[in-house]
């Protein structure tokens, strides 16, 4: 038994030396694909965070026409404050036109076209409403009543933004998942090819082994171990990459602590779980790729 184990380990180590470039390619590909898998998970988690945060305090925004009179604004404020059972009066905030413009400058930083159309004079001021009622239908009903008031330009629900965020996150999820699956297949293929090449290079040895009565498993195991280690090393590299990426992202986001972006940070606990997962997927993909290659070659 001991001699079999030492044989398998020696052969696995020798395999890496014999086939260094292909091995490196297989490891890098699996690292990149696993990194993408990990990133997908983290992005999903980040969006989930973002959505939960919205859910926590769904906001209703009452936009006030830019030409509304001071009396009309007061009337709207009064109407809002008369609904303490539905809205949290203490957290009711009024953003005047200057403040709204400042906010828009941030919101549309990535969209200068829209920003150009706005001026502190034509921008609507807004009431930011934090509801108390859990029932979002009730909040929406109230919002519709405000829509009828003089001077109200528009009523927006965070719920609607919510849908956009969901859709964006859905899109990103599909895109990254698709890419990571494709890359993972490529990684398995490369590992498969590495092992196939390794076995081809050693076909005489394998022929002799079969003729003197080595079992297929005995022949296969060093090759499978080689593939497994390739996947595992790829997994370790992807974990390092993911850790670096997550740290950098967290640092970057902390700078915008006041915005919703702050929600897009993933806590370390979850990231660690993802890393364990990546190591597992890497090892499995390596073992499967090399297992298929080894079996194919042995059956011929």
């Amino acid at each position: 038994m001991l001699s079999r184990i030492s044989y398998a380990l020696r052969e696995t180590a020798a395999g890496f030396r014999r086939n260094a470039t292909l091995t490196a390619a297989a490891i890098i590909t699996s690292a990149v694909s696993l990194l993408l898998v990990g990133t997908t998970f983290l992005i999903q988690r980040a969006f989930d965070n973002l959505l939960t945060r919205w859910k926590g305090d769904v906001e209703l925004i009452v936009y006030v026409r830019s030409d509304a009179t001071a009396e009309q604004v007061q009337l709207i404020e009064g109407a809002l404050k008369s609904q303490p059972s539905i809205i949290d009066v203490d957290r009711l905030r009024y953003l005047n036109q200057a403040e709204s413009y400042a906010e828009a400058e941030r919101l549309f930083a990535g969209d200068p076209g829209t920003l150009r159309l706005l001026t502190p004079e034509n921008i609507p001021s807004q009431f930011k409403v934090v509801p108390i009622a859990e029932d979002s239908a009730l909040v929406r009903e109230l919002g519709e009543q405000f829509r009828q008031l003089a001077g109200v330009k528009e009523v927006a629900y965070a719920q609607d933004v919510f849908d956009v965020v969901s859709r964006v996150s859905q899109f990103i999820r599909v895109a990254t998942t698709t890419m990571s699956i494709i890359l993972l297949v490529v990684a398995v293929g490369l590992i498969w090819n590495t092992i196939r090449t390794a076995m081809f290079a050693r076909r005489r040895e394998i022929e002799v082994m079969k003729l003197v009565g080595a079992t297929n498993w005995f022949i296969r195991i060093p090759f499978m171990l080689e593939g497994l280690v390739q996947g595992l090393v790829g997994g370790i590299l992807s974990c390092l990459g993911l850790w670096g990426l997550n740290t950098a992202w967290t640092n970057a986001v902390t700078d915008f602590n006041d915005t919703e972006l702050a929600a897009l940070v993933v806590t370390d606990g979850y990231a660690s779980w993802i890393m364990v997962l990546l190591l597992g997927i890497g090892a499995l993909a390596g073992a499967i790729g090399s297992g298929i290659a080894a079996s194919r070659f042995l059956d011929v």
Partner: protein
Amino acid sequence: MIRLESVTKSYSSDVIAVRDASFEIAKGEFVFLVGPSGSGKSTLLRLMNRQEQPERGTVWVAGKDINDMPESKVPYLRRTIGNIFQDYKLLPNKTVFENVAFALEVIGRPRHVIRQQVPAVLELVGLADKEDRFPHQLSGGEQQRVSIARAFVNRPLILLADEPTGNLDPGTGEGIMRLLDRINSTGTTVVMATHDTRVVNMMRRRVVQLDRGVIVRDQERGVYD
């Protein structure tokens, strides 16, 4: 020890390698399979260690129908059969000792057994002083001796030799034949495919002659032709 019952093997519909071959080889026998190239000698050997499967007929080895055997049992069958080839099939990056030890290593024999049996078999084939050489440092005859040592180190019941003297000059070939004779005298059944007239006539053993896949002669103490 080996029994073939109406065995037919073809590689494609118009190439029939062995046609309806039946014969029996007793334990301890030394048998030559003779005939021109392509007459089916090698195929017969490959049928005996299940490198090939026949279309029809049965191959019995040591009392077992080897074509009825599950794939997982084949390695254990092969451990009872040694193989020798015209081109030796030695591993160039391993020494003489390692080449022979390899056969024991890959069937999981413990190291102390290897350390004891490999020198013994190298002594038998007359290469005790060359165990650290690599194959390319040896003559053809010496390389064939290494391959015989590898085939015999596990003390198989049967030795299958496919043109073992094919690449060797007559004098060297004779030495190989004497070695095979010696191994045969320990009780190992030897089946040797050859078209080397000289060695067949020298040995005067049983001769099974093939012509285009058909057995045309089976003679005790025969000559090549």
